[in-house]
Every structure is written in C-alpha cells, then in structure tokens.
C-alpha cells in the first residue's frame, strides 16, 4: 500500500465531515501517484483557508503561506528550482479575493505551475462570509441584506488573460478532476482549475444537489482552442454548468525564458545531496562565493 501511494498522508484531517475538500484531496493524490514523481520532487503551495490546509494532508513538500499569497512563493519556488513540480491549492477567497492581483500577474508571467481552486463560493474557515464567487442575494453575517456584488467568473477572466490551460471541475467527480489536474500539470505554463466544491457547513445554496443537477461534462465536439468560443462558453452558468477543459492556448513560459537567457536551474552546487541518518545533522558553513574572478571584474568597473 505505502508503495503504491507514497503521497498518502496518515494524520488527522480537520475538515468537516462531508466537505468537498476530501474529494479534491483524493483527486490530487490520484494525480500525483500517476506522475512518476517522488514526494521530494513535488511542492504543494497554499495560502490560508480550508482549501489551503491541503498541503498538510499530502506527503510531499509544502509551503503553507499567507492568506491570498500562494502564487508569489509558488513563482519563487518554481523559478529557482525548475525540476520541482509545483501545485497550488487555494480557495475562492484566497485566490480570487485577497490574492486577485497575483493571479493576474502570475498568468502574465506564465510560470509552469498548476493552480487548483477549491471554489465553494464562500469563506469556509472564517465561518461563512461571502466570497468573490458567492451568488447575488446570499445572506451571511457580513452580508445580512444579501450579497450585491457580481460574482467573479474565473473562467471568463482566465480566458481574457489568455491562460494556457483553463478548466472547471466538480469535486464529486474525483477521477474526472484528477485527469484535469494531470493535464494541468502536463501543460507547459500556467494551468488554472476551478473546482466547484460544496461547503456543507456554510453554503446552503450551492449544495451537492445544486451542483449535481447542473454540471455536465463537455464532450469532444467542444473545441477549447477557439478563444472567442471559449469565452462564450465561459458565460454559461445557471441551469447548466459545463465542466472540463474550457480553454487551451500556448505561449512561451517563464521557465523557457530563463533557459533562453542561460540562467540555469540552480540547486546551489556547493551543497551535496544531504543524507538521511538517524541523528539530526548539525549545520555547517559552505562557501557559496560566486566566481571570484567575475566579482573582481565587477570591481574594475567602478
């Protein structure tokens, strides 16, 4: 068992029973085991929220940072070590609310990461306030007279931003979601996967039943490479909600640019691979001085 699923985490999970997050966790686990990667080669990055707890529940590396700030560290990690597979697990509040600006610019940079948004249309962890995707009219303690702002449409937005891979899924569709995530990871460049996820504690509108009645899978008559058609499709929301790959395009990734410039993937060469041992190693100093002759040549410029 342990061999077949090295990414499985054994500890306690703190989500509410019945939460869609469990399903997304399963999908992520499924994808990771299918990738032929070791846990040490994977980093899960998140902000803060229920969704953002996910990196604690996968046996891999994790960076669980600040609310709304998952994308900038994901950029820093991937840019510095391009051999790592970097996934971001984030919430609708984390990614489209507090973190909206980073989403805009991470897509522009086209760094090769996969962003999984647990879109429960509510702030779960802070107990039920409206999120950017909450429906108009939803009543909460901070919107006692009902939400009035137009819900953010992440798919339309991502297409307008020409995101290389844009998909929507539904948490209950575990295999389908896993497959979309796999495609996202395999896409060169930025992949956004918005996953409809019931919050059984706070979202009494967008329930399992609500989603199940509405979602349908796009079939292969649908061509995700046509940007204008994809945009039209992205506006479909109501009685019918399409899930699947909604848009695909291609452009140079940030990683490729670094390659082109000859800025090399760098694990500091002074550091040998570290061994595991029974005792905790002590820290010791290693010289990381850049090429002294090059530094000297800088000096001569002054």
């Amino acid at each position: 068992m342990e061999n077949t699923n090295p990414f499985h985490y054994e500890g306690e999970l703190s989500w509410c029973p019945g939460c869609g997050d469990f399903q997304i966790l399963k999908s992520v686990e499924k994808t990771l085991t299918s990738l032929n990667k070791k846990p040490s080669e994977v980093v899960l990055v998140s902000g803060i929220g229920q969704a953002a707890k996910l990196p604690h529940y996968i046996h891999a590396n994790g960076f669980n940072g600040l609310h709304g700030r998952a994308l900038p560290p994901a950029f820093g990690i991937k840019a510095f070590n391009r051999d790592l597979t970097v996934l971001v697990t984030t919430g609708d509040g984390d990614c489209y609310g507090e973190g909206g600006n980073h989403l805009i610019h991470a897509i522009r940079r086209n760094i090769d990461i996969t962003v999984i948004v647990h879109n429960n249309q509510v702030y779960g962890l802070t107990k039920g306030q409206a999120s950017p995707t909450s429906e108009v009219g939803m009543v909460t303690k901070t919107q006692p007279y009902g939400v009035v702002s137009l819900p953010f449409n992440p798919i339309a937005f991502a297409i307008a931003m020409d995101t290389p891979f844009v998909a929507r899924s539904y948490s209950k569709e575990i295999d389908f979601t896993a497959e979309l995530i796999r495609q996202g990871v395999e896409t060169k460049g930025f992949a956004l996967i918005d996953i409809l996820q019931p919050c059984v504690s706070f979202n009494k509108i967008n329930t399992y039943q609500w989603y199940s009645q509405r979602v349908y899978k796009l079939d292969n008559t649908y061509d995700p490479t046509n940007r204008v058609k994809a945009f039209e499709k992205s506006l479909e929301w109501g009685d019918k909600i399409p899930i699947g790959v909604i848009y695909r395009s291609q452009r140079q990734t940030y990683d490729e640019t670094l390659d082109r410039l000859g800025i090399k993937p760098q694990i500091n060469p002074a550091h040998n691979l570290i061994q595991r041992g029974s005792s905790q190693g002590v820290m010791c100093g290693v010289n990381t001085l850049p090429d002294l002759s090059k530094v000297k040549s800088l000096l001569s410029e002054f």
Partner: protein
Amino acid sequence: MSFDISIKIAGQAGQGIQSIAEILLKVLKLNGLHVFAYQDYMSRVRGGHNFMQVRISDSPVYSIKEDCNILVALDTNSVDVHRNEVPKGGAIIYDPHSTMVDSPDNRFIPIPMNNLAKEAGSPVLSNTISAGSILALLDIDKMDAEEFIKKQFAKKGEEVIGKNLKALAKGYAYFLENFRNWKFTDIKAQKKNKTILINGSEAVGFGAIAGGCQFIAAYPMSPSTGVFTYITGKAKEFNIISEQAEDEIAAINMALGASFAGARAMTTTSGGGLSLMAEGLSLAGVMEAPVVVVNAQRPGPATGLATRTGQEDLEYVLHIGHGEFPRFIFAPGHHEEAFFTTIHAFNLSDKYQVPAFILIDQYFADTYATEKEFDLNKVKAISYQPSVVSTPYLRYKITKDGVSPRAYPMQGDFTFIADSHEHTENGHITEDGEVRNKMVEKRFRKLKGMQKEFGKPTYYGDKLVPSGSEKGKAKTVFITWGSNYGVVRETVDCLKKQKRSVAMLHFNRIYPFPRKEAVSLLKGAKEIITVENNYQGQFGNILKAETGIEADRKILKYDGRPFTVEYILKRI
C-alpha cells in the same frame, strides 16, 4: 597645498546634470583625487530644479558642503537660487545666450555652451562642452576625459565619439582662450592612488552579488530602485533570477518562496513598499526563512518627499510584522561598509534563518564617493547546511541555539513543510500550548548567537577617559547611525581642530542592539549628542530603552535634506 573644492551643477531635470557630473567624477577619480558627490532632485522627469554637488580634495571627503566654489548653472533659476552660495573668488559658469544674469560680478564666467555645441555638431553636446570648460577651470588634463568618452560611447559608434571629443576640446579651449588668467586653485593629480568611484546603491548591489545573491524580486520605488537595477544588470552574468513583481507583497513572498527552495534571496524597497511587505516579513519570522531586505528610506508619512532623504523607518523596522520574532537590522555608514555589511547580511540571515534588514536612505543611495578598492579577499559568502538529516526530517527541530537544520527540496529524498501557523518540529500546524512555548523560545534563543556576530559600533575620535578618573576631561560623544557616518566624522575632525575633545560612536548594527559595547564605549562621556535624520530622535529612544542612557542633546533634521558639517556645528 591641500585643497577642498565644492562644485554645484544645477538645472532642470532632463538638462543633463548627470552627464556632466559623470565625466567629471570619472576624470577626478582617474586622477587619484578624492571626491564625494550628492544629487538633490525633485520627483519629476523634466523641469523643476535639481542639482549635483561634487566635493573634491586631496584627502578623503565624507560629506557635502552647503556652499560651493564653483557653480555650473544650466538655467536662469539656478543662478538665482545658488549665486549667494559662491564666495568671492569662486566661479559661476553659465551660458550667456540662454541664461539671464542680473548684474554679473567677476565670479561669472560666460561660456556659450549651446553655440559651441552646435559648432561641434549638435546641441545635445552642450554637456560635454560644460565638462570641458570645468576641467580647464580646474586645470586638469583632458586626456582622461577623452579616454572616458571613448569607452562610454563605444557602443554608439565612431561618429558619436568624434563629436563628443570635439565638444570636449572646444569647451576646454574656449575656457583657456578666454579666461587664461583665471587661476582657480592648485589641484594636484595623485595618479598612484588606487580608488574606486561607487555610489551607495552600487555598493549594496555589488555586496549582494559578492554575497552570493541568487534571487531578487522587487517593485520599483525611489530611492531603492538603484540597488535593484544594479543587480538586475548583472543577473545573466551571475546566474541570478531577477523579477519585477506586480507589487511589494508579491516581491517579498516570491523571495520567501525562492528561499524555501534554497536560494539566497532578497528584495529592495522603500517606505510604502516596506509597509506592504510587513505581513510577509512576519511570515519570514515564523517560517525561519532567510531573506535580505534593503529598505532605502525617504521622508514620510505615505508618499512624503519621494526623492529626498530621511531616517524615519528605524523604530518601525525594529517592530515591523505582527507577532514577535528576531531579526537583524544593519545601517551601514559608508560605501565600503555597505558592501561588506551586505555580504554579512546574507551570511547571517542564512546562518540564523531570520530576515536581515539593510537600512540605507536616498542620501546614501545616490551619493558617489571614491573609496579605496574593496579587499575582495576579505569576502566570504557562507551558506549553512546540515550534512545529514533525521528520519523523518525535522525542519523545525528544537535545538539549544535555536537554529534548526535547514535543507531544501530535492537535496535528498526527504520532504518537509514550511508553515505560517505555529507548528511542530516537522512543520505541521499545531495548537498545543507547550509546543507553542517551545517554538517561541527556540526562535528567540537565536538572539544570543546573533548578538555576538558582525556589527560592533565604530568609535572614532578622542578616547574617553572614565569620568571618575583624575584626568577626566569634558568629552562630547556624537552618536549616530547609517548614512550620517561621514558628516559626523568630519564634524569631529573639525571640532578636534578647534581643540575640542570629541568623538563619534556610529552604529551599523542596530538589532540585536550591541548593548554591552554601547554602555562601555559611552562610559565617561560627559555629553552625548544624537544626530539623526528624523523628528522623533528614534535611535535615541532605542538607546534609552536598551541601555537606560539618555542623550543630552538631539540634533535632528527632517526637511528631506542630508546633514552638513555646517548644520551640526551651528547646533552645538
């Protein structure tokens, strides 16, 4: 025989003050002279009133003067603003065709720069004309200027070089022909002196590169942009990833991601941007992520005086970020110190896994100075790594000195989590009170080691005699930090010439505060005067909270302009 000359080049933004100064400074430096130059500029791209102050001497100079011996006025307004700063016997160079001068006296030297430029091939050459005339006035050979022009315009081709050489010669000749008898001073070249000419931004940026910086993310903001652009310009050569972030929040969080992945990471910013980084700095605190943060100060609050200087962020940086965590704060006093401090900041941030701040300011960043060549053999960029990690790897292992083994993803087959919550030794979220206590205490235990590291204060001037002693004399000690090193040092020199018993105590490291050193160095001081570029006397407050010592007097300045020796002398 010795000389100390100040030149002011004044005009509107966009008129080329910097081009003139650049030739001048390089030539002076090549002649082995000591120079110190500062630029005073407005927050605009064209127009307004800017000026560059250049001081030249045969011995090291550390600050600017209020008055000047030579004024180069590029517009009428500059004559009006600065003519009274030029004493009798000084020189005011101007273009009689474009600049109106009321009742010129014998200080005024009209040079038809525009006309000469047109003769040389283009009006844009008038800066080179000015440079030529100034060199002639200073009686400095123009050969070095020619060399500089050839190098500077190498990429632009022979024609541009030729025109500039012509302009230089014209400006030089025009002065000699028309003002041959105008003997100004004895400037002696000292070609054997081996110095470099560097500004504060470059000193920090160069230090970062020498310190092994591998990742920089930043957002442009005056006066910090210079450090960012210097490093970015060398990124390809030194295999550094440099990214202009969408905002300062992204910048610090990108740097923390890179740090997690193993990079020596940094960011640069100023006031408003620093504020936006506050939450990320707190994250660095709990994640124990090394990161170097350069904050180039300018006067606030908010946008304040965007292109001017101040030292107003000290107490803020001491406490920035919610929650409690240790940090290093450095505030180098001169360019050489900035270079080495930056290297130390990288090393110490890495060793103790805490953020390290480097506080500079607009005055420091934009000041050019000649310094003796940095001794690169003193450079050591050291990274700290465990050779073995436990199974399972405990990223936040509780240790005696508070420092846990820090390894990176893919250095082995282990995994780990860096977490913004309070966490267990393996990085997972915890709410356990006992574990919490241990983690807080572990983080603060680092202070003991940090206290012993680089950053003792610099004592300059007369030795203090313990006040109880028989021979006890009245002693004045100026206490200062950061960029005021030079001006306070010169104040001390000046007062010593007046036979006053004075000294300076300059703090480069402000946190952990070198308490013992401060207390022992100040023992016996009869009068303590703090010198700071802020309103509240912030360093004085810290000194009092840390040592109980209270300054007798505070010399403060908060108008956005740097101190001068004259300013300080007037106030004691």
